[in-house]
């Protein structure tokens, strides 16, 4: 990190140091990739294309696709968590590869495989070009590092339109800080109607005396509640209440399939113990 400019300069002549053939691994062709060092799939593709040691204008897209898919597979073998971006790119590249290999069907709607490949190349070249410029820019003499302004400025009577000094940064910062404070002060949690678990427990106990056989839990829900939130709350409370009743041995619960109805039945012989 320390000699950033230098290493970035080198990066443009040499294969990316983040991609390395590790000798100590049985499969000596294995490409070990420092995923943390990469910033997105395009970055990986660019680094891979440089290992081809050819001018960016002559990248073999097919070769590049192969390398990228290898890279993704390697990462998976190593159980590295790959961000969705990388996988999306892999899927797209696999698609591009198949398009490139298969004879192109004339189709009005679809963009030709060559065109797709050309666009990818363009993106890589554009990123490569801006990287080079970034390195050149940072290697320029910089004020405060390589060259210096007057260290002891004297105040000169230059008429300026403003006597106050304020940067856009400070201005926006001030507003943001204000908003941050406001955000903290403005939290209000609205009181919500809820159907309490106690209420559900009571209602369920009473109604279970009437129902004799397996019954869908839904049947016990209070009817005619207009408020959607309250309905949800009731559902949650009845579910919890049923679990609680099963735990203390008052009822049996059964659900035959995932997301299927939850059937409830009063446990036999419970009356006697009661």
């Amino acid at each position, binding site marked *: 990190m320390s000699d950033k400019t230098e290493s970035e300069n080198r990066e443009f002549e040499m294969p990316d140091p983040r991609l390395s053939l590790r000798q100590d691994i049985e499969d000596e062709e294995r490409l070990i990739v420092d995923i943390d060092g990469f910033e997105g799939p395009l970055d990986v593709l660019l680094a891979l294309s440089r290992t081809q040691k050819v001018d960016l204008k002559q990248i073999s897209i097919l070769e590049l696709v192969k390398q990228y898919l290898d890279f993704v597979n390697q990462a998976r073998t190593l159980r590295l968590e790959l961000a969705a971006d990388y996988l999306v790119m892999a899927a797209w590249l696999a698609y591009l590869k198949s398009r490139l290999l298969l004879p192109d069907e004339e189709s009005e709607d679809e963009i030709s495989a060559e065109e797709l490949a050309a666009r990818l190349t363009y993106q890589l070249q554009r990123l490569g070009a801006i990287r080079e410029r970034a390195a050149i820019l940072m290697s320029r003499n910089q004020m405060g590092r390589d060259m210096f302004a007057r260290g*002891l400025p004297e105040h000169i009577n230059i008429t300026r339109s*403003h006597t106050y000094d*304020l940067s856009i940064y400070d201005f926006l910062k001030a507003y943001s800080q204000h*908003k*941050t404070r406001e955000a903290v002060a403005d939290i209000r949690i609205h009181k919500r109607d809820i159907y309490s678990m106690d209420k559900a427990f009571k209602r369920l106990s009473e109604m279970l005396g009437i129902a004799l056989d397996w019954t869908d839990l839904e049947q016990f829900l209070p009817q005619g509640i207009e408020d959607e939130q309250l309905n949800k709350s009731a559902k949650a409370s009845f579910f919890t209440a049923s679990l609680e009743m099963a735990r203390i041995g008052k009822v049996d619960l059964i659900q035959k399939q995932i997301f299927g109805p939850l059937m409830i039945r009063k446990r036999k012989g419970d009356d006697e113990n009661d």
Partner: protein
Amino acid sequence: MTDDENSRDNHEQLRICEALLFASDRPLSSIAIAEQLTEGSDVEAILLNLQKKYQNCGVNLVQVAGKWMFQTAADLAFLLRKEEEKERKLSRAAVETLSIIAYHQPVTRAEIEDIRGVGLSKGTLDVLMEATWIKPLGRRRTLGRPMTYGTTEDFLVHFGLNSVKDLPGLAELKAAGFLDNVNTSRLNFLSDIEPDEEQPDLPMDDDESSSEEQVIS
């Protein structure tokens, strides 16, 4: 060393001296300067040379308290700015007030106080007005007919903006990292800024004869 080389080296030492004194934020002793020169350089001689070189220039090399510094030539002192005209920093309250006016204009004093949750000290608006960044926009058609404020053309020029609508909105501030401590979900509690266009305030009217320029906003 030949004479030629010698003189070239002398010139080089002079240049280094010159650059050091130019960039330094305090007067330098000849010892401190000598540390940066080739060993064995005659720093005193070089400094005297440099002083001579700047003798008739707009800037002179002077010795103060035994140390060396560049200074505007005494006869050009009229160019120096008077102290009270120095650039001033705005107080935190003033910057915040300015930002609230910019985002919420037209806005009354009471509204600013309400938004900031704290009273506006006397003079804050004056300072902003003096800086020509805000101006009265007219009176609101409500009880008490309070004066509203907004930003000026100068304000836009200062920040290189075309219009106040070009100020970044909350989502953009967030994305740029300004609102780091705010939980994103809480952003919903904050309303984004919509410059109030539908209901322009009343132009300043009858009771203030002065208002001509202020009406034009």
